[in-house]
């Protein structure tokens, strides 16, 4: 078996004295879409934060076989891990274009960066219309597109998405998920997705892990997890 793209072993993390993760383990293959499901407070966002060293975890995180759990956030980004954080993380006082430019901050291939603006504007024409506008004045949906686009400007190998559908109209969510599928299939970007909307996440994902109170309680292919009775009752509502 080839080395997994991302391998997490016995991850513990928390905030101050409050422990949130009690030994999470999972792995994902290059080119796949993996989703972490779970209720509010289960530890999904904390897991993503720990992967990016926004909080210090205990345990092992390997990216392409290499230990990354003691590196700084800035260095993890340089390995090609793009993070769309909870709350979108917009640079509200900067323009849309400047937000995107910051996404490519660590890249040295300037000519390709300029081309990537057109690629992004192709996916999200609304952002092209708003390129000179102050990002804080964009609508919630536009800011979510901007957050995803900012992470894509990194040309990541792995995209971490923290509830991209949050606060969006259903139509826009569908559009966004279609684009995510395209990015995964055409550009080979692997995606680790956190979602409240379990049905949509399972439609998009290949693999799924169910997290309850800081532990993985169920894992398998998206189809297997979707057909699990407990998941259907608790997370899919049918």
């Amino acid at each position: 078996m080839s080395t997994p793209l991302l391998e997490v072993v016995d991850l513990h993390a928390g905030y101050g004295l409050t422990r949130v993760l009690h030994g999470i383990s999972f792995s994902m293959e290059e080119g796949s879409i993996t989703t972490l499901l779970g209720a509010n407070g289960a530890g999904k966002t904390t897991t993503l934060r720990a992967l990016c060293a926004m909080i210090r975890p205990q345990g092992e995180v390997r990216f392409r076989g290499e230990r990354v759990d003691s590196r700084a956030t800035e260095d993890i980004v340089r390995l090609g891990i793009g993070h769309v954080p909870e709350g979108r993380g917009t640079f509200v006082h900067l323009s849309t274009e400047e937000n995107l430019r910051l996404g490519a901050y660590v890249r040295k291939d300037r000519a390709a960066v300029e081309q990537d603006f057109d690629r992004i504007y192709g996916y999200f024409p609304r952002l092209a219309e708003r390129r000179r506008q102050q990002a804080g004045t964009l609508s919630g949906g536009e800011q979510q597109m901007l957050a995803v686009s900012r992470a894509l400007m990194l040309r990541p190998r792995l995209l971490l998405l923290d509830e991209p559908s949050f606060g969006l109209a259903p139509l826009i969510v569908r559009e966004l998920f279609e684009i995510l599928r395209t990015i995964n299939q055409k550009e080979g970007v692997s995606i680790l997705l956190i979602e409240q909307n379990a049905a949509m996440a399972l439609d998009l994902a290949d693999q799924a892990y169910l997290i309850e109170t800081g532990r993985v309680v169920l894992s398998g292919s998206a189809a297997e997890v979707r057909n699990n009775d407990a998941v259907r009752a608790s997370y899919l509502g049918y």
Partner: protein
Amino acid sequence: MEAFLHQLLGGLATGGIYASVALALVMIHQATHLLNFAQGEMAMFSTYIAWALINAGVPYWAAFFLTIAFAFLLGLAIQHFLMRNLRSTSVLQLVIVFIGLIVIFNSVAGWIFTYTIKDFPSPFPKGYLFGQKYLSPHELGAIGVTMVVLTLLWAFFRFTSLGLAMRAAAQNPVSSRLVGIRVAWMLALGWGLAAAIGAVAGMMVAPIVYLDPNMMAGILLYAFAAALIGGIDSPGGAVVGGFLVGVLENLLGAYVVGNELKLGVALVLIIGVLLVKPSGLFGSVQVTRV
């Protein structure tokens, strides 16, 4: 009329210096939300370095640029070794650190260079230029140097990716890290730039007020007034505020309050702005949802 013009233009010359120091204050405030009370003393100390270099036979402009480099490293070091390691987030404690820096720079300058007032050379020729006698060559030169510094700074923040990264790090450190910006270094860079700007202001003002360890005390007060008038979060506002304070100081000093009470003008301006329009002319009102 001639006297009035003289006061007005002279005000613009010192105003440029206030504008530079105010800009240095605004830069650090934007990055850290702190007011660096030691900005003036850092500038004074750098000016002494320039004086020492020139006295050692270094040509003026070489000493000028060496001093800027020294000030930049000094600012960098203060952020990197001192401010960054302060675990405290209490404003009061940080203010005390700044006051400590004031005392240290002031005393060390006095200890090394003595408290005797010294002449500081101007790089500009003597006698009046261009057939006018409102502005001395040094005043004209100081305005010119200020404008060059401001233009370079504006271009740096507007057009370079490092400038953009510094702006980003100042407003959203968490997101900045997530795009790979080394936020701690951006802060240090901000301190370095602010100290360098302060050093230029120090070297431009020293020929006018003469060099001594207390030379920046009054200037810092005017710079505070300038930064507040312009809006503490607006670099452009700090510059406008600087020129405004310089002109007001001169005109009020000449025609209203007299020379002895000139410094009081700065205090009245500070209190006035805080009472009437705390966000300043160009500042934005910060609203926090709770």
